[in-house]
């Protein structure tokens, strides 16, 4: 009894390359080719894709970070290089996502400092990097230019393009051959629209990762879950403007009331549960990069993904 699990679909999720090894012109110890799916996640006959990948998020100014993570990671939070190294060696992440939270500071203008931070992180970890750039539209152009230049040849994933705010990031990606994250507010049509805008200014589809925006568990996650399913579904049905891999960043998880107001030892437990449940469901819905902030989530998610990929017969 063999079910037809391609449902008559003929489309394929497009592929995107993250990171570049020495032989590919960069300095990473590995690069990833994600995408390529032809049916529902984890339902392929042979699972060959390395995804879902787990990206551990770090930042360059922890005053804008979750106090739960800050307490847990201790001194590391003041040293992005050491933090990135620990994410690779100890936490077991597949990617590091550096969030440039310093750009949230009022009248931020230390662009050269950002370049040094990116350099330090590149030197401290051999993993491919996601750089989450400016928080202030006015400095987008300088920030993305600096990040793109510093990470030249490394095939970074740069974030985040939105409708009405994508030109600076696209320019940096095009100039230095990086991929970009295209985010839309939980709406498949807006996701498609943004991809078309990016296409029009020359960003190739194999350089785009869709972020359908991840609402926190209990605060709209069901909308994100269905948006991801629908995007995957459209890609498989042949819509080329939605046939890109997806990224899920449940970073709102750590600010919801349940987590914010938890006390004592419960705080870590509930932060991890919230990230973990969201991440697992997103992986099943089709997310191929999953970003988390609590180190304990990485280990559990990794084991769960291994389990999802393992089958003992049909």
């Amino acid at each position, binding site marked *: *009894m063999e*079910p*037809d*699990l391609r*449902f008559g679909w003929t489309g394929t999720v497009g592929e995107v390359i993250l990171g570049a090894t020495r032989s590919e012109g960069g300095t990473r110890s590995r690069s990833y080719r994600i995408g390529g799916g032809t049916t*529902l996640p*984890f*339902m392929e006959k042979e699972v060959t894709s390395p995804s879902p990948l787990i990206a551990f998020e770090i930042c360059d100014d922890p005053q804008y970070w979750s106090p739960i993570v800050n307490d847990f990671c201790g001194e590391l939070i003041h040293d992005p290089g050491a933090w990135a190294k620990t994410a690779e060696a100890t936490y077991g992440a597949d990617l590091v996502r550096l969030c440039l939270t310093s750009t949230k500071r009022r009248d931020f203008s230390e662009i050269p400092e950002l370049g040094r931070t990116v350099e330090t992180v590149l030197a401290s970890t051999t993993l491919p990097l996601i750089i989450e750039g400016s928080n202030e539209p006015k400095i987008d152009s300088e920030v993305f230019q600096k990040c793109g230049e510093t990470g030249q040849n490394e095939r970074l994933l740069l974030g985040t393009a939105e409708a009405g705010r994508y030109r600076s990031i696209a320019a940096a990606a095009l100039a230095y051959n990086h991929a970009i994250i295209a985010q839309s*507010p939980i709406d498949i049509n807006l996701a498609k629209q943004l991809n078309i805008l990016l296409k029009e200014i020359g960003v190739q589809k194999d350089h785009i990762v869709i972020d359908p925006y991840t609402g926190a*568990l*209990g*605060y*709209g*996650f*069901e*909308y994100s*879950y*269905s948006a991801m*399913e*629908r995007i995957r*579904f459209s890609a498989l049905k042949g819509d080329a403007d939605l046939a890109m891999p997806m990224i899920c960043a449940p970073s709102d998880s750590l*600010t*919801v*009331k*349940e987590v*914010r*107001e*938890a006390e004592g030892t*419960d705080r870590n*437990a*509930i932060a*991890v*549960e*919230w990230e*973990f*449940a969201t991440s*697992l*469901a997103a992986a*099943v*819905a089709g997310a191929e990069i999953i970003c988390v902030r609590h180190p304990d989530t990485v280990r*559990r998610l990794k*084991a*769960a993904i291994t*389990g*999802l*990929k*393992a*089958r*003992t*017969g*049909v």
Partner: protein
Amino acid sequence: MPLKALDIYKLLPKKNCKECGDPTCLTFAMKLAAGKADIELCPYLDENAKSVLGATTRPPIKLVKLGVGERSFAVGEEFVLYRHDKTFYHPPGIMFRVLDTQSEEEIVAVTARVHDETLTRVGADLKFNGTAIVNTSGTVEAYAKAVAAVEKTAGLPEVLVSDNPAAIAAALVLCGSYHPLICAATPENYKQVCALAKQYGCRLVVKAPTLDGLAQLNRDCATEGVTNILMDLAPQTLGDFLYRSTAIRQLAITRSVPDLGYPVYLDATAFDDEDAAIALGIVKYASVIVTSPLSPASAKAALTLRQNIYTDPQKPIQMNPGLYRVGTPGKDAPVLMTVNFSLTYFTLQGYLESSRIPCFMLIVDTEGLSVLTSVAAGKLNEALVRDAIKKSGVENEVTHRKLIIPGYAAPLSGRIEEATGWKVLVGPRDAAEIGEYLIQEWKP
């Protein structure tokens, strides 16, 4: 292939006796064609008509009711693979496991917890659903004692887990009339187990690691007279469960293999990370999930995920429009306007509570649309806000005339000022920043 209503009608007795609950045979036929009625409701069908109609007219996944009384619940009767295609109707029951090797106090404590524990979220009371009693000891006496301990504590739905039909029989003497779920029938023991299930009118889990094996067992049990069935897919990995559960849902809803048209049972305790199995079961079609008693953090996450996934995507949960208080606001307290999408309401309310600034929330009726979508659709407009101010009585509650509106409603600020005569202040886009905003900006 599904039959059309008229084809079905030809096979019905055409007596219009109303005994099925429908006024005419034709309306019954229409319900059958839509998968909304069970052929068994018609007492006058001949065997031929039954066999023709049986497989094609009942809901593609059978509805199975577990337990009796207030806490009983039904699973199955699902129609789609994706919640966005329609909705998922019957959320999975999550059952806490007890072992018959545990002390009576422990068993009673777990059962009482299942009975009492409630998580209130977005206006709904979320609860766990029952107890699964496992015959770990292997003895009949210990098992009967454990079941008795559960029984005396609460009238919750139960799963009876044992390889030993004698232990199940002893348990059924105590709880047989409360529609428990017997776990599990296998190719080796199904005749014995079916006899017990039939005698007491129980629900039955069948267990096999292949789809063919499950379909065969379902047929065998039906032949023995038991059709209230759930299927344990005997997964060894999360991937096994995901693959088999998706395949079964697909084969069942398309009626390709009607013998697989039963709800799915998942024993999460067989996995190293039970939380992972529970989350996977919730999103991928499990109808009964058995787990060890969960930690407070795991319990909250599981109940919340289940609530999210089983929310009807076509009907956003809405708040009643009107004036709500946070704390005990006085005459000079801020008034914050937002929409009646419940998620917006509860998110904002959470941040307002933690800001510890007493205030009023003026909730306007956007039919459950969020701020962003209601502004885009023109549903949120100055007339709506003006009428809401009048109707809510907020004019008698505060002495000032200042209204804080959501950041995403900024384009409406001028028109709202004109229509209401209130001074409009544009708040932040992100509710997380509201506390800071009020501290910085609010002066009555």
